[in-house]
């Protein structure tokens, strides 16, 4: 394996590992929650994963009609949470009737648990969050082209620490981008259309199991030989399920599946590509279900 490939995979693994240490505690917190409240507790995650996974797939609209093009690199995608992502309104679990509403912290909310008063002096406790302002993820991406103005891309990363406290993460994706400029007479910018499908699992036994696809139209043009701004307008669709061990009344646990509402959103991108013969750097901002940003570096030849 070449040094470049090893560095890309290691960087991706390390960044993915950054989200893992708290995973065991997320699993613990879910156990005490009903499926309805698991949805509330993890509500910020679909938006976070949707905007990050669906960013940085395409950094140029310049897809050659033919010829060998290859690059491998690492893309880091991040998004910022809003204040409204930090709390949710829990629903009463069976056997408990609340006497006052509370705003319980989501997984990205305050670290303090919230206690809700109930009938007869009972209390229900909702666990604290991890006080996160943002979410980030990094993945390696390989791009190969071009044939009939089309290139293909793939993403893959898998981290398994072998430690039950840390768990594992797995991401894979495939995509394609096709040159539209050659259908247009004298287009002032390069234009392409692209799509990517990805699957992302986090934790043991598919604790978080998500699938997403993204499609976009990209426009770009070299304003200097090595500087290429790009714009994109697209659409994200994201599905997520959670499989957790729910604490049973009377003891023991039961594996419970929770399906989240689909997260569908328009996705706009603006970015800059610095393109040198064998190395390309890019940075972009994304406006989708949340505001995101991404940056990356790739090595190779061709566009």
């Amino acid at each position, binding site marked *: 394996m070449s040094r470049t490939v090893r560095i890309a995979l290691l960087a991706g693994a390390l960044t993915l590992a950054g989200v893992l240490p708290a995973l065991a505690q997320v699993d613990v917190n879910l156990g005490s929650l009903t499926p309805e409240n698991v949805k509330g507790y993890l509500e910020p995650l679909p938006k976070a994963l949707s905007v990050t996974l669906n960013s940085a797939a395409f950094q140029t609209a310049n897809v050659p009609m033919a010829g060998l093009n290859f690059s491998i690199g690492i893309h880091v995608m991040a*998004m910022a949470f809003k204040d409204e992502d930090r709390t949710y309104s829990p629903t009463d679990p069976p*056997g408990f009737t609340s006497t006052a509403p509370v705003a319980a912290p989501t997984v990205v909310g305050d670290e303090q648990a919230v206690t809700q008063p109930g009938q007869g002096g009972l209390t229900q406790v909702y666990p604290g969050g991890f006080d996160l302002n943002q979410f*980030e993820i990094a993945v390696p991406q390989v791009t190969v082209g071009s044939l009939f103005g089309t290139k293909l891309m793939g993403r893959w990363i898998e981290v398994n620490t072998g430690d039950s406290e840390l768990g594992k993460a797995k991401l894979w994706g495939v995509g394609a981008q096709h040159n539209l400029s050659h259908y247009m007479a004298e287009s002032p910018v390069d234009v392409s259309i692209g799509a990517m499908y990805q699957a992302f699992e986090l934790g043991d036994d598919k604790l978080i199991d998500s699938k997403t696809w993204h499609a976009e139209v990209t426009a770009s043009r070299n304003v200097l030989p090595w500087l290429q701004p790009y714009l994109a307008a697209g659409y994200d669709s994201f599905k997520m399920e959670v499989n957790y061990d729910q604490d049973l*009344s009377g003891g023991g646990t039961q594996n419970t599946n929770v399906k989240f509402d689909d997260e569908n959103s328009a996705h706009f991108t603006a970015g800059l590509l610095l393109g040198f013969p064998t190395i390309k750097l890019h940075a972009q901002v994304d406006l989708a279900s949340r505001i995101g940003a991404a940056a990356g570096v790739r090595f190779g030849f061709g566009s």
Partner: protein
Amino acid sequence: MRIHRLLPLAVLALGGLSLGSGCPTIPKIQDRVVELAVGGTTTLDFVADGSTNTWSGNATYDLADLDINSLLGDSGIDLQHVKSITLSGVSYRVSVPDQTAGRTITSGTVLASRSGGGGPVTLLTGFHGPADVETPFTTASVQPDGVTMINQLLADILAAAKTGTPVANSTITYDYNGESTPNGVPTHFTWQLKLDLSIVGTVKVKVLDGD
């Protein structure tokens, strides 16, 4: 202006717009102390007897037998970092049915007395349902005085567990009674009382986050 000259301006405008509305920053590893919540239960068995149209009985349980470490399981919460144990729910069920077909109980009440002179206070009211079949757990109507007594005992048990000392006055005697039909046939069944507990404790974790 030609359209391709607008491209860099549009990129800069969209970038500036995003940066002004809360964009992610360079992340770093940070410490967090998170309050986790773990559920636990303890189940108590009681025998109810009666000769006319009533049923009653009493039993004493030592809640000091509660194994907090076992309830914490593999949650990662250290006993010293448990902040509270409180009662989050109470339910009951018939576990060994009465042999008389059609046996039904109503108006059940449970009083609780803590050793050392606490109580008696009313813990539950309004027990009802069939007693001639095994039943699932039913949510009980709890009373604040009884809940306060159990919560105080749980707090004492937690404090004692942290210091490794015995719990003073750790037993609770439950006195229960109610009405029973059909009349004139002796009543005999076994029922269970389940106490659902919420345990809150802190763990220190590392997260990747921006400022």
